[in-house]
């Protein structure tokens, strides 16, 4: 029934190789696809079925956290019934995945790259960092406290310049990633406009970031999130308002130039 021509690299069964808790409520899922898949682009995502039943009904969109030796990794936080069920799945079990979906980050060839991730925003940014380590990007990564930092020492294995921050100063620099970014740019010798920022985070983080960037003429590309049902462009649930009209996070996104977003 499945024609290879159409479903190649899209609808796949994958075996859970590992599904481990990293910190409170945060899990790292490693999947081994049943068929070889091509390398997903950083910023692309998969829809994952959390179980085989009717509740929850929909697949969950998760951005690729890493792709190593043909295995896909996803980093997720338990926020509701779906992710709670996903966290209970164990090694050896099989789940359906659909992807890779959406467009990844388009990496600038000339500008100094800054990678900015707050909290779970590290999920796609880590993969991007690993993919472009040779371009010598600077990673600014933060969380509320030392305990809620998903990565501390491990992130140094990426071999790139990394600034870690916590809101309460319990680890690394004190402050949120946006304040740390501002200070970094102020202190660096390069002009603001020679930088490009790649990020992923909540609207609460992206909105002030967009204002700051437009003030200083810095480009920011952000992986955005929105409730979605299908992940392939038909349900129209996941739209964001841009200067060029409504765009679907799953199809035209999830990465958008923040200067083009019209905030509600």
């Amino acid at each position, binding site marked *: 029934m499945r024609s290879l021509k159409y479903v190649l690299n899209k609808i796949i069964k994958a075996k859970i190789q590992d599904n481990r808790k990293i910190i409170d409520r945060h899990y790292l899922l490693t999947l081994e696809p049943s068929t070889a898949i091509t390398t997903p682009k950083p910023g692309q995502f998969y829809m994952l079925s959390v179980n085989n039943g009717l509740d929850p*009904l929909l697949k969950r969109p998760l951005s690729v956290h890493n792709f190593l030796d043909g295995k896909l990794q996803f980093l997720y936080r338990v926020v509701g019934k779906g992710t709670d069920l996903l966290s209970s799945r164990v090694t050896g079990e099989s789940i359906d995945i659909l992807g890779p979906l959406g467009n990844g980050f388009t990496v600038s060839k000339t500008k100094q790259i800054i990678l900015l991730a707050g909290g779970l925003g590290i999920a796609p940014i880590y993969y991007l960092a690993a993919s472009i380590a040779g371009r010598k990007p600077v990673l600014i990564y933060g969380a509320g406290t030392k305990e809620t930092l998903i990565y501390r020492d491990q992130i140094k294995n990426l071999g790139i310049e990394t600034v870690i921050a916590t809101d309460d100063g319990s680890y690394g620099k004190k402050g949120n990633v946006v304040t740390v970014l501002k200070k970094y740019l102020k202190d660096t010798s390069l002009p603001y406009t020679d930088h490009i920022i790649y990020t992923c985070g909540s609207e609460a983080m992206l909105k002030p970031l967009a204002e700051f960037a437009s003030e200083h003429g810095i480009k920011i590309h952000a992986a955005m999130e929105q409730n979605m049902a299908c992940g392939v462009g038909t349900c129209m649930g996941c739209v964001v308002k841009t200067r060029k009209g409504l765009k679907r996070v799953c199809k035209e996104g999830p990465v958008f130039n923040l200067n083009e977003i019209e905030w509600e």
Partner: protein
Amino acid sequence: MKVSLGRLKLKNPVMTASGTFGYGKEYSEFFDINKLGAIVIKGISVNPMPGNPTPRICETPSGMINAIGLQNPGLKGFLKDQVPFLKQLKTKVIVNVLGNSADDYIRLAEAVEEAGMNAVELNVSCPNVKKGGIVFGTDPKAFEDLITAVRKKVKLPLITKLSPNVAKISEFAKIAEDCGSDIISLINTLTGMSIDINTRKPRIANIIGGLSGPAIKPVAVRMVWECRKAVKIPIIGMGGIIAAEDAVEFMLAGADAIAVGTGNFLNPLTTLQVLEGIKLHMKSQGINSVSEITGGLIC
């Protein structure tokens, strides 16, 4: 697997529900959509509609609520950007249309006819602006006037999509039949609501929306059965179909064809799996023709 919905002949009874299959292009990346009996494309209005603010969807037990707000590119955009792709398909293309007056529906249906599409489906779950915003599909008089007016002008097979948000759906089925609708399709989504108890806010921006998915299937099956008893015209059954077993249930209740809606969101191949499953069911039960299942309920 052939079925006849009056003048509308399908190669098999599996269709898509409007609003869950885009304009066909997205799913054609996953499979040959020509294998389906028909595709019903997302509703078109005369002018482009931006739709509702987000969040537009939320998940509920075995279902989901949506209030997309009928976002669509309008008639011009549809004719220019979608029709060329739709015209080369080798399956029947049914265009869902929506408006705020009978004139809107007529203009759309005439354009759909001229564009060479195979049938038009009336989304009657829209407010009639001239009559104080009363929804066509829940007011018998507005409903009757609308179908009568469109029927006068349009030769294409006319499908009326019934709203389940009424006390007695068979009453509307009968009116549709009497006013010349060739086919009825049911059900549209059930009005629903969901609240986040921590923020005390509605979980979608529009506050209320349309509930769909397996959660509504028993309601839909019951309504198909009631309509089957009330009318002779063909029925397209839908509401929570995600597997062949669901489809057969609708047919036994009286559906001549079925449509997969939310099921498309769960897996792009749901329609194909439903089609293959119906074939298997027929084989295992020694059934030669789909029409042997339709209305086959024993009670």
